[in-house]
């Protein structure tokens, strides 16, 4: 490991990115519920209020719609707000400002404004918080032109993508899986960015392409390790960016492996996998396919409370292993 690379948790990496952004650009400030002395519901802002003060680490009232609108208004008038939703589920209260205002303002005004706004969404299941605190709604926002939607899966990317988002002139929505916050990984010191719109191939293989997002990248890598023992050589692409989506990288991979499995936690129907599948079927990679394209996604239900039900509602490593076997060996 390089001297300037440390092991940090995903949450620490995000916090470091926000600190660097505020140190280097006085326009940057944080807004959100309980992000000050409380440190954020998931301790992502942590002690930043003590370093930067309450004016730059602003606790808002519990007013998601109004707070999101304030962030939009600040962004179009010269500031660079980073807005934290306490849970991504609460963004449903702010959809008006995100979808009708932030995403469309530049277009509606004929390019006369930009909306340099970053919003952070703690998302996903696995915490026993049940149906209103566990959703993966990233596909909702990825459906809206005008937004950029990111899902970093590692501490390295969480920091670099947040810094890229702050530097971006348009509204960038970052979905952070809550189970990743404590995950540790190598993070370089100082300023760097991870480009928006580029996937990352986490494992190279010949037999099957798995495209996964967020925490599903890690589950897919675990599955790939098991499958390697059986002689199935899996390529795992970390999607990282839903809008824009790195379709060319997936096409290249499928042309090599001839098989595609999409793995995502959001509800399967009308989800990210449908978009990836369609893009591949529409592309020159279609002629290379040796098996049907397959999706593993979240159950067609709200997220349940019971831990066994909760696990059953999202793809798990054995599900990915079974799907891969089916595609590669045509097992039933």
């Amino acid at each position, binding site marked *: 490991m390089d001297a300037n690379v440390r092991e940090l948790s995903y949450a620490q990496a995000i916090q470091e990115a926000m600190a660097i952004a505020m140190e280097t650009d006085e326009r940057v400030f944080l807004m959100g519920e309980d992000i000050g002395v409380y440190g954020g519901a998931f301790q992502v802002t942590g002690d930043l209020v003590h370093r930067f003060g309450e004016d730059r680490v602003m606790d808002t009232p519990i007013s998601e719609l109004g707070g999101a*609108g*304030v962030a939009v*208004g600040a962004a179009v008038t010269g500031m660079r707000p980073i807005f934290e939703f306490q849970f991504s589920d609460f963004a449903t209260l702010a959809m*008006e*400002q995100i979808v009708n205002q932030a995403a469309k303002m530049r277009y509606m005004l004929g*390019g006369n404004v930009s909306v340099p706004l970053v919003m952070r969404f703690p998302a996903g299941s696995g915490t026993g918080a049940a149906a209103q605190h566990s959703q993966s709604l990233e596909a909702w926002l990825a459906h809206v032109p005008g937004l950029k939607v990111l899902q970093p899966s590692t501490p390295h990317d969480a920091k670099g993508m947040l810094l890229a988002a702050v530097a971006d002139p348009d509204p960038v929505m970052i979905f952070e899986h809550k189970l990743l916050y404590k995950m540790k990984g190598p993070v370089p010191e100082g300023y760097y960015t991870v480009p928006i719109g580029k996937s990352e191939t986490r494992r190279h293989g010949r037999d099957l392409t798995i495209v996964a997002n967020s925490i599903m990248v890690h589950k897919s890598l675990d599955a790939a390790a098991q499958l390697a023992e059986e002689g199935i050589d899996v390529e795992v692409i970390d999607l990282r960016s839903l809008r824009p989506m790195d379709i060319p990288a997936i096409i290249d991979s499928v042309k090599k492996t001839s098989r595609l499995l999409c793995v995502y936690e959001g509800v399967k129907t009308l989800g990210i996998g449908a978009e990836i599948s369609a893009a591949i079927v529409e592309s020159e990679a279609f002629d290379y396919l040796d098996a049907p394209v397959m999706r593993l996604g979240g159950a067609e239900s709200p997220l349940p409370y019971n831990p066994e039900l909760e696990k059953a509602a999202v793809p798990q490593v054995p599900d990915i292993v079974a799907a891969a076997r089916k595609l590669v060996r045509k097992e039933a």
Partner: protein
Amino acid sequence: MAQSTTDTTAASARAANLPDIYRRLSTDDLREALRKMHLIRRFEESAEESYMRGLIHGTMHLSIGQEASAVGICAPLTDADYITSTHRGHGHCIGKGAEVKKMLAEFFGKEDGYCRGRGGSMHIADVSKGNLGANGIVGGGIPIAVGAALSIKKQGKNSVVVSFFGDGANNEGAFHEALNMASVWKLPVIFVCENNGYGMSTSTKRSTAVPNIADRASAYAMPGVIVDGNNFGAVAAASFEACDRARRGEGPTLIESKTYRIRGHSRSDRNRYRTKEEIEAWQARDPIGIFEKELTEMGLITPEEISKVRAEVETEIAEGLEFAKASPAPSPDDVTRYVYTD
């Protein structure tokens, strides 16, 4: 509109014991206000006519009858101040200093329009004058105005933000959340509810629990002021006071400007929810007529000068229409242009 206190005519008005507002505005300012009110009226009528003739598609929401409210509120504002506006936003746009030719070009869907033909009537905006835009979502602009006021405070500027909205918006959650935050953070924002009596067809009596929308200010610990929205002087006076307070760092004000839209809600309105008598009673309180009478009685304008203002406005509208017709349409190849910053 520029302010001046050194004007001799204003001094004579002061001597005549006239309302305070005439001490804050010079004769030129007052005549400019009258010109803008005429410009809004003729703009709305011309837009309506162009719509009837099939030159403008979509829909539009006309503010005929609300001219004093738009121009009076904008009287203390400079280009360094912001506004957010509503679906009924043509008057606000002109009040904040927009050029009618670029507004008309926008309505015609042309490249020379303020939004390059991408926004139309409901998103009309002149950002160069601090107008952050009309809005198709009732109450959508109110939190954005609070955000602009937060920027002003963070940037240490002396500007203010005016958020226009209608009586319908005061029942949206965004209104309540925004007023609360503006008050908690003591931001330089003026909330202006143009109460024209109806949210589309539903009267304020049938939709709103308080008799006056200004009453809601007390819930957010800010002054709530009711003004006659058809009286330019009354509106301007309230706006000056609220802007002064905001610039002093004392926080927001809610102004309820009671007025009336003479036309229907939009082009689809069949006027089934109000009477002809009610409309005629408000037409008798025409804000332009009231203002002209006041200025004439004060000796600040002559009938000949009023005729000249009307003629100038007529020319400006006619030239604007020609400009709009002649402007090129956007290319279909550019449909995704301006979604993201290049």
